[in-house]
């Protein structure tokens, strides 16, 4: 391609990326601004007097920092929500990926459940989650799982296992059958084949699936909103509390948004290559 063609394409891509980055840059910018700059006219992308007090008040609402603390003293600290998310999302992810991996192996190698079972799992992703939240509320109340970490972990595991199953099935289908058969001929039990032959071969796929499911679990909002109130509240719910309860305190809201996004942006960056498989349940192969 000509040099001019290259340059115009490059400029076009740059413009697209700027548009895409704008909302996030704006949030990032507000998160470092002191209160008088939140709505300052004309707005600036780079804060005039940058401050980290928005981030500090998230964790110490009682501590007066830069005049922001007094405004958000009514809000609860985000520490609890952060800890909950850091417990719930990884455990649910590990459970979902393990259960999905075993089931995917059974489906891929033995056709367990025929074609019905794997497609049936997809129903958890097809319907609006609110339709499941209604019966789960009375169900969870009976079981005493409301506002517990275990309750959310179980729910997140069940509602992401379809992703785990389908993504892992794709990776397991890619392992040549004859490697496993050779091990069987050498006298290895099916358990041994699974754990010492197949598992190491799909390690990369397992990691990609785990990161993908982690993104889903970390960002999940509706179930967390319905099924938690104090003890097991997660980060997305905390964001909504900040937007709802503390009104016009844009700085801390923006800071919390940034905190909530960091883990998933990192996870997403690591698994770029596998995003197509993930988002389409492996229906679209690369």
């Amino acid at each position: 391609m000509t040099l001019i063609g290259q340059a115009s394409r490059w400029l076009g891509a740059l413009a697209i990326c700027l548009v895409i980055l704008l909302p996030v840059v704006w949030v990032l910018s507000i998160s470092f601004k002191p209160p008088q700059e939140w709505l300052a006219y004309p707005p600036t992308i780079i804060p005039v007097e940058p401050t980290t007090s928005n981030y500090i008040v998230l964790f110490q609402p009682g501590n007066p920092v830069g005049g922001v603390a007094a405004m958000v003293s009514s809000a609860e600290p985000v520490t609890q929500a952060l800890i909950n998310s850091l417990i719930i999302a990884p455990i649910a992810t590990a459970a979902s990926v393990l259960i999905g991996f075993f089931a995917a192996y059974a489906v891929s190698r033995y056709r367990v459940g025929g074609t019905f079972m794997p497609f049936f799992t997809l129903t958890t992703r097809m319907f609006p989650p609110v339709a499941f939240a209604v019966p789960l509320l009375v169900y969870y109340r009976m079981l005493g799982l409301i506002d517990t970490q275990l309750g959310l972990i179980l729910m997140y595991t069940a509602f992401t296992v379809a992703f785990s199953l389908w993504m892992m099935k794709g990776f397991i289908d890619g392992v040549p059958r004859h490697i496993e058969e050779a091990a069987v001929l050498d006298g290895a039990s099916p358990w041994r084949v699974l754990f010492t032959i197949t598992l190491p071969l799909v390690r990369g796929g397992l990691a990609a699936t785990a990161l993908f499911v982690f993104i889903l679990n970390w960002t999940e909002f509706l179930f967390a909103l319905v099924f938690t109130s104090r003890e097991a509240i997660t980060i997305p719910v905390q964001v909504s509390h900040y937007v709802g309860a503390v009104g016009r305190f844009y700085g801390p809201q923006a800071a919390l948004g940034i905190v909530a996004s960091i883990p998933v942006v990192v996870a997403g960056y690591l698994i770029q290559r596998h995003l197509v498989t993930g988002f389409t349940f492996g229906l679209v192969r690369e």
Partner: protein
Amino acid sequence: MAIKVERPPVAGGRKPLFPRLVRALNRESFFQNVLAMPMQLLLWFLLIIPTLIVLYLSLVAWEPRMGVDWWQAPFAWFRNYGHVLSDVRFWQAIVRTIGVVVVAVALEFAIGLALALFFQRDFLGKRLFTAVILYPMMLPWVVVGLAFYLLFLEKGLVNYILIHFLGFETGVAWYHYPAVALSTIILADVWQWTPFMFLILYSGLGALPRDPVEAAMTLGASRWQIFRYITMPMLKQVIIIALIIRSLEAFKIFDLVFIMTGGGPGTATESLSLYIYRLGFVYGQLSYAAAMAVLILVSISIIIRLAVRPLEYEV
């Protein structure tokens, strides 16, 4: 094919302590069922039993504030369904949600396809640019909602741009007018999920065989003809899958509305999920919400059957 080979006795191997138990554990039928068991249990407890409960709930008249347990509530049979079908707010929410799905998914598809075609040629820094394009869909919905909420404040960045660069007299009060508020929600959805369309179409385009295109070129086909009659038909399968998945996802829309407008002004931007959420968990009318949930489950199942059928014949 299942691996069915009788294991030869291992010469000199260690004798198992409980040979019978080990043999039972290693039997293929046991092995494969144990593997699938955890998932089946999970689906029974968190999918099938709740679905039965929602069916039951939709047939009784029960609200948590009645003070009786839900299984003791009197039957209302199909009265809940009757109420749902004559509920104006329900129909408004349905039409609004479908409208959002159609507009948002159409925009996402068009922009996503344009981007995917744009990124087919190589240029400097392409990998970095694609990485930037992909990240919005990783962000939590609530954070996207928050970002657009901050952008569209009365004294926010968008109004500043409108006034100072596009010659508007005053800023727009984005959240005061139903159609305008709804369009900010659609915009947020398009911003977050165009990358999804881009990603799928981009990798779909990349995976297409080159031969037909090259053959058409040598025969003197124009670029438009190649796109219209060769690329698009080959890409059809991928496009249908992308549209189905994205439409189902967009129909769930809840987080963005909850954060950005809370359904307001009034109920003018309330999505179906938000309405069911409010009925069930704010107003406490669980049986009513259950009837609505059942109607949604049934109608989406039917739509999926109809949408997937053409796919199955072509696979």
